[in-house]
């Protein structure tokens, strides 16, 4: 059985092009909207045009009379369906009941009021247009600070103070630190509402089979298993008879880390009619009803000594929750509190979060979820402090970084940072961009009357969610590795990637561990009937948690394969070597291939003692801690004083995300994150008027970053592996979003600092900048 072993190229760490791409570039991938079933019906949803109104009556008769309309359901019909689930909890949290269709009152523009079912999507739309509601509009409130003011309209009449919760956290003794500090600076900082805008809107197809009591739901989600559990609960079905399929999912960014009213609503309709039914969200509906992100007003106070030593940070965070809690709404701002110290070693913090109801669509996890706001807060305050102390912002950061020998580093908020060398990463960034040279160039530009700015952000983030006690629905992930008799390998991951590329990176990991060609590996996900229970994709967790679960499942496969190999080679299972797809007895040099082992494991006529046939392993793995990627982003910008327009001259990103499985995917995640972060800094804003209307409710008014608006992003990495998981990976899904925003604002504030500008709220529109320049000259 001696064979020549060809060394297979190790794939982890290589720029392997994606295995999911062929279907995507040929237009053959299947998204929810592409699902076709026999006798498929179509749903259109009639929604509230008002921010707040009582419903006097609903007349559906004209809609029902329209030929082709099959049914219309309103709030009274769905009372048997469970309400929308919020999995987060906080002491004293007020949870309004969020029915899947409005009852006698609507709470935000877009609130679902009725659903029309027709045989044709065009007729369904016509039907929805024929629904007549007698509205009694009431005063809406959309600004969270106005909502807290005395006499504000009550979003939920039962809670006139509009306060959903107040959450306090302290670490150290901020008051004492501030009292002893030589400098105390305060700043109000806004992290405005953002609209996630995945390019694929949401969509649901539900197919009830009464005879089997089974419901199959295709939904564009990041969390198919959680969606299944929740849906089964809402609809009173057996969980094992509900199948949720997340087919190709066209982007999520947190907005699909949720279970929305429409999923249960389509299930309900399909069960009522005993027909499959499809609902595809329009872009307008996406703007109005899919969660928004951010929505903070932060009052920050930093205490420091004149030598630049930061002593503490105080935060009052007013979170615009919207009208309801979606899955994680109230938990998001608590993440901002956890990350408020950033990368710095000060020991004293004091934070209060006030969760405020407003007549707006709920906020929830949007790329970064709480951490971008925290990073923006601390990174802005550090720059404000640097300006006050007339210190170089880089120098101030070096002075306060947790040191490389301090890890694991316990922060003022009680987190334990896993690993890092913050100064080394900033060193690389400063050197690559020639920071000293830039400062000279800036001095020259200023002498010429030009506004050039250099903005630094040294961000840190908490990701790879996470230990279960820290997450509302379990912080583990699962993986199954199934080796077929032919030796082909199927990996099933509980993560539900939707663009992140785990069909490739997980195949790289499996190929290396098992020594099989990558083409022999198939990675499956997103179907609860195929994949064992999993948690899903969010919080930059796929590689560090899902990949780790896969790693351990692969170890189980290896162990069992070695047992079979040893038996086949008549060797000792403890000493055989499994490498490059061969199990070799080092004593004899004899080997069997992995494929031969797989065949033997299924044929079953030689079973190692204590083993059993088959070659399948499943692992559920939970990290002991989050992972903490970090980095230094530097932006060079210039402002046109005549128009206020900002031009990004250079963008340098140096990130430390631990070990890298596929640099190509990492670059892609980083660039995308940066685009969303710059989007927030410069253009994006979900604006509600005082009347509750979402006035940036289409791409006409909500500025999405376009190719011509984006700078070229230069990037590099330092690598400090995470000790928390066996891959040493941290996470990159959100890093770019978190690092970019404060770098951009710091850059523009730096550009305008000769005018005495200390802070600019986002988005930094041309007009806002022009007014700053104009006002300072006037």
């Amino acid at each position: 059985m001696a064979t020549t072993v060809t060394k297979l190229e190790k794939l982890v760490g290589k720029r392997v092009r994606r295995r999911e791409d062929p279907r995507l570039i040929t237009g053959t991938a299947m998204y929810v909207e592409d699902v076709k079933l026999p006798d498929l019906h179509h749903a259109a949803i009639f929604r509230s045009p008002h921010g707040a109104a009582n419903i006097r009556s609903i007349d559906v008769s004209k809609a029902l009379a329209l030929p082709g309309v099959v049914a219309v359901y309103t709030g009274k019909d769905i009372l048997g369906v469970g309400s929308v689930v919020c999995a987060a909890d906080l002491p004293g949290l007020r949870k309004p009941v969020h029915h899947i269709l409005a009852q006698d009152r609507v709470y935000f523009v877009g609130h679902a009021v009725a659903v029309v079912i027709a045989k044709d999507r065009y007729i369904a739309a016509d039907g929805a247009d024929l629904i007549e509601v007698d509205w009694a509009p009431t005063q809406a409130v959309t600004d969270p600070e106005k909502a807290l003011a005395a006499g504000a309209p009550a979003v939920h009449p039962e809670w006139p103070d509009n306060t959903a919760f107040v959450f306090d956290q302290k670490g150290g003794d901020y008051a004492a630190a501030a009292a002893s500090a030589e400098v105390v600076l305060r700043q109000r900082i806004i992290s405005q509402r953002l609209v996630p805008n995945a390019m694929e809107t949401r969509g649901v197809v539900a197919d009830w089979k009464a005879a089997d009591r089974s419901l199959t739901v295709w939904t564009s989600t990041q969390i198919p298993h959680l969606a299944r559990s929740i849906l089964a609960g809402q609809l009173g079905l057996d969980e094992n008879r509900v199948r949720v399929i997340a087919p190709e999912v066209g982007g999520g960014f947190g907005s699909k880390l949720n279970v929305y009213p429409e999923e249960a609503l389509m299930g309900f309709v399909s069960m009522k009619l005993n027909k499959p039914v499809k609902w595809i969200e329009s872009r307008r509906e996406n703007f109005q009803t899919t969660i928004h992100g951010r929505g903070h007003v932060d009052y920050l106070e930093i205490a420091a000594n004149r030598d630049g030593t930061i002593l503490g940070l105080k935060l009052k965070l007013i979170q615009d929750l919207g009208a309801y809690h979606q899955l994680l709404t109230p938990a998001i701002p608590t993440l901002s509190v956890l990350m408020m110290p950033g990368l710095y070693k000060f020991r004293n913090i004091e934070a209060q979060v006030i969760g405020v109801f407003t007549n707006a669509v709920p906020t929830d996890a949007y790329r970064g979820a709480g951490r971008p706001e925290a990073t923006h807060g601390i990174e802005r305050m550090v720059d404000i402090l640097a300006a006050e102390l007339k210190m170089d912002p880089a120098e101030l950061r070096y002075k306060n970084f947790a040191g490389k020998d301090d890890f694991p580093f316990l922060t003022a908020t009680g987190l334990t940072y896993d690993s890092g060398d913050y100064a080394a990463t900033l060193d690389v960034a400063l050197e690559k961009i020639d920071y000293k040279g830039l400062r000279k160039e800036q001095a020259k530009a200023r002498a010429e009357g030009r506004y050039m700015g250099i903005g630094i952000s040294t961000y840190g983030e908490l990701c790879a969610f996470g230990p279960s006690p820290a997450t509302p629905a379990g912080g583990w992930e699962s993986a199954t590795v199934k080796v077929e008799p032919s030796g082909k390998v199927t990996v099933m991951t509980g993560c539900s990637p939707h663009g992140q590329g785990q069909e490739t990176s997980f195949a790289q990991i499996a190929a290396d561990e098992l020594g099989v060609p990558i083409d022999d590996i198939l990675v499956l996900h997103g179907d609860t009937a195929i994949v064992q229970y999993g948690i899903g994709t969010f919080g930059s967790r796929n590689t560090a948690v899902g990949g780790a679960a896969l790693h351990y499942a692969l170890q189980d496969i290896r162990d069992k394969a070695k047992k079979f190999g040893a038996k086949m080679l008549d060797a000792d299972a403890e000493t055989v070597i499994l490498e490059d797809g061969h199990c070799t007895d080092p004593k004899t040099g004899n080997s069997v291939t992995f494929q031969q082992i797989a065949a033997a494991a299924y044929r079953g006529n030689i079973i190692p003692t204590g083993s059993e046939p088959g070659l399948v392993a499943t692992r559920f793995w939970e990290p002991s801690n989050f992972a903490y990627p970090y980095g230094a982003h530097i932006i060079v910008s210039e402002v046109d004083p005549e128009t206020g327009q900002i031009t990004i001259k250079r963008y340098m990103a140096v990130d430390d995300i631990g070990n890298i499985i596929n640099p190509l995917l990492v670059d892609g995640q980083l660039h995308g994150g940066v685009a969303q972060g710059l989007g927030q800094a410069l253009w994006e804003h979900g604006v509600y008027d005082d009347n509750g209307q979402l006035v940036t409710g289409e791409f006409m008014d909500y500025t999405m970053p376009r190719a011509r608006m984006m700078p070229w992003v230069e990037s590099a990495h330092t690598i400090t592996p995470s000790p928390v998981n066996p891959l040493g990976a941290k996470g990159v899904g959100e890093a770019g979003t978190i690092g970019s925003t404060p770098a951009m604002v710091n850059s523009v504030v730096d550009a305008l600092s000769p005018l005495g500008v200390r802070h600019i709220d986002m988005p930094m529109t041309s007009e806002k900048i022009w007014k700053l320049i104009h006002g300072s000259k006037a």
Partner: protein
Amino acid sequence: MKVAGTAQLPFPPERAYDLMQDPAALQKAIPGCNSLERTGDDEYKLSLKMVLASLSGQFEGKVLLTDHNRPYSFKMLVEGSGKIGFVKGEGVLSLMLLDGGTEVAYEGEAQIGGSIASVGQRLIDTTSKLLVKRFFKKLAKIGSGETDAAEDEA
């Protein structure tokens, strides 16, 4: 949204004031108004079809005239809703004798909601100005006795 501006009418404030309280005149002057029916003291039911370029929509609503201070000022409240959205406006109109005619200064708040609010941000200001302009232009014609003036170009 704030709505404010001035308009000139070629007749004295008394005449201007009375015209603006006269349902028949208002019906003719309000762009696209099909009917304006008195439903109570100072209260009128309004039906209009707004047509502007390709945009069109039927609105039903009411007009309320209050705080009468002839011929100096009054308050007007207009509410209308239709499939494409709804509008609610409230404002004070002040009349002043100017060169034998009247200068009407209006100042108020308008709320716009529904479909038109979520796509038409860039157009709301210009179109509302246009509609106000049309209204006073027509009113000027009516007040000057040019009642046969061409129907509103809408």
